[in-house]
């Protein structure tokens, strides 16, 4: 008799420790001689950093150091959160870490943060993502820096980038990347379609809100190994990022990924460069634990986005063409963006006879953007599925049948130009059709409804 593990409920192996409080999360470990760090965050969205006055803070009890960018032994001149964990000269978002106060206790560090005085020379703040694209607009970053995205780009942006032909539109220097995928004459086909629906969809920044605030602890072993104990989604990528930031060989860096108190895309190489930089500078163990307020301001929520979408169909419910213009707010400090993914996924699991899809990655003086569970996907599905339902209304068609009619199957060619592999769109839609909740949709009580949306 073989015991299957598929479809059988099993208790988590880590549950006994978690229900007894035995699990050591990243802020729980005891480290001898540990120092505690708190951040000084920028109050300006865009500014030149003039001065950080630290004497008053340094004089306070328990304070060991007030570190700025120059104090960290960084080996790279980049401007992402790994190579610029503390702002060097140009501050590019309100909430950007400007200094690190290190003290014998968290309370002493928190006291001293209030005594640090930062002088800024404000610059025009770029916060409207569509306006920022127009030629001649103020730039969100004015100083030339090396904006490499490092290893993080490869984790999330695993899709082709389509044709890169930014020559058609006049765009400002805030537009860091453009993607264009088109086939057929979508505009003409839409004009010839029986029904066309369109809309402008805005989605906000979305904060991952893990219950465990971000934290990293770093120290040097007697043999100069840099050890970083952290709440992270990727120990190896963190190790490589630290190597890149501090110019250390991989074998000199050990990253310990502690049990994660939730991350959902938001915990990748943000805290470790700060803790490691401080530990290397001071040659003492340093822990950076964010307060919730710091976590809200200084981490990396998922991008805000503006999507202009238009889709068409024939009277018989066949989808004809789709045009999309998707403007992704990359915020600041980001070497990569989701404009590639989102402008691909906006076509959904459907067949189109023509498409014209554009994505723009635009820098602004907003947070560093990060990922939240399927970056670029929900924002695309929100726009497309809303319009699919509107299309169904215009066609007087059942919304599920409309989708089934146009759902891709294996070997259909998608907007990426590649054939789809085995695709479950049809099977999923057929299962929904049989679902009791969907079957009961017309006999629900007042103020109750049921809907569905498809995506991949």
């Amino acid at each position, binding site marked *: 008799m073989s015991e299957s593990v598929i479809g059988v409920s099993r208790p988590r192996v880590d549950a006994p420790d978690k229900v007894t409080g035995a699990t050591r999360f990243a802020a729980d470990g005891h480290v001898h001689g540990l120092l505690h760090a708190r951040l000084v965050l920028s109050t300006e969205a865009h500014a030149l950093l003039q001065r950080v006055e630290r004497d008053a803070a340094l004089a306070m009890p328990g304070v060991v150091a007030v570190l700025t960018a120059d104090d960290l032994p960084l080996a790279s001149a980049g401007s992402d959160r790994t190579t610029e964990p503390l702002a060097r000269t140009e501050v590019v978002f309100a909430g950007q870490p400007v200094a690190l106060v290190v003290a014998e206790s*968290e*309370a002493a560090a*928190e*006291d001293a943060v*209030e005594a640090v005085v930062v002088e800024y020379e404000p610059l025009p703040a770029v916060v409207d993502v569509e306006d920022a694209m127009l030629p001649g607009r103020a730039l969100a970053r004015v100083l030339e820096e090396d904006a490499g995205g490092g290893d993080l780009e490869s984790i999330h942006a695993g899709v082709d980038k389509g044709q890169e032909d930014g020559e058609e539109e006049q765009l400002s220097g805030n537009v860091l990347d453009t993607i264009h995928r088109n086939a057929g004459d979508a505009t003409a086909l839409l004009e010839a379609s029986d029904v066309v629906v369109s809309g402008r969809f805005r989605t906000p920044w979305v904060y991952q809100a893990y219950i465990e605030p971000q934290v990293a602890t770093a120290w040097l072993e007697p043999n100069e190994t840099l050890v970083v104990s952290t709440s992270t989604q990727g120990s190896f990528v963190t190790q490589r990022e630290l190597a890149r930031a501090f110019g250390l060989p991989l074998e000199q860096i050990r990253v310990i990924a502690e049990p994660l108190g939730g991350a959902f895309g938001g915990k990748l190489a943000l805290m470790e460069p700060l803790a490691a930089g401080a530990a290397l500078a001071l040659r003492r163990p340093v822990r950076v634990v964010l*307060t*919730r*307020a710091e976590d809200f301001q200084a981490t990396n929520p998922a991008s805000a986005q503006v999507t202009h979408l238009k889709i068409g169909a024939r009277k018989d419910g066949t989808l004809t063409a789709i045009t999309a213009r998707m403007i992704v707010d990359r915020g600041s400090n980001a070497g990569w963006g989701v404009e590639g993914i989102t402008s691909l996924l906006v076509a959904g699991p459907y067949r189109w006879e023509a498409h014209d899809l554009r994505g723009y990655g635009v820098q602004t003086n907003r947070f560093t953007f990060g990922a939240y569970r399927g970056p670029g996907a929900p924002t695309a599905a929100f726009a497309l599925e809303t319009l699919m339902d509107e299309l169904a209304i215009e066609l007087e068609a059942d919304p599920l049948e409309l989708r089934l009619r146009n759902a891709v199957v294996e070997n259909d060619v998608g907007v990426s130009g590649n054939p789809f592999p085995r695709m479950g769109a049809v099977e999923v839609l057929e299962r929904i059709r049989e679902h009791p909740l969907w079957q009961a949709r017309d006999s629900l009580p007042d103020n109750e409804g049921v809907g569905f949306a498809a995506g991949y």
Partner: protein
Amino acid sequence: MIPAAVRHVRASTLDEALDALADPEAKALAGGQSLLPVMKLRIVRPSLLVDIGRLELGGFHLRDNELRLGALTTWDTLESASELERPSFAAIAECAAEIGDLQVRNRGTLGGSLAHADPASDMPAVVLALGAELVLRAADGERTLAAEEFFVGPFTTALAPGELITEVVFPLVAGSGSAYVKVEHPASGFALAGTAAQVTRDGKQRVAVTGVGSHPFLLPADADPFDALADAEIYGDRFAPVEYRRHLAGVVARRALDRAQERMERCDE
């Protein structure tokens, strides 16, 4: 996250507390569910905390014509008190049951919350609608103040420096019904609009509103809530713009009145 440095002294008698509160930078600490959050955000930085949490200021006294509640009575005690299971006092328990969450209700006190006077806190509406009086003690004596004179602005009351609330006294209006209804902000639990209502046998209605303005206030007696609110100064914010909040206050006031009326009709006092 961590309060600014502060000294702490525990008072073992009321007189000791009042003496210590003579320091203008001292604040009384009861359950701490209002004071500690603002200290943690460093919005408030007393130099001395006078801990009154263990004074004998809890407890109930129900007499013929009044209910006297000690200032240190917790919400949890109020929520489950049999003395409050009557239509005339139903609003008190109903309100207490909806404050914060289980953990807050285990520690938060009647007096602490009223003295803190957050414009969106719940119980001020009840003390206003039920016509309560507050007994205040200072080092040099005691006085009684009607609730209507107590709340004067955001986080501002008529408490004199060094003065403590010791009791809240609710008149027993025989045969009346009362209720508290609020729509709360889903994250903070504070009232976007909260109203307490009292309906008496001889047809008089009292309605008090919280969460909508600079401080909780009574509507004119017997007025239609929507009419009365049309002229009120209402705050707007991203959770509830002015006109939405004004309408919301009217809706919860209407619900509170209806519920108070229904309780009054079922009352057999």
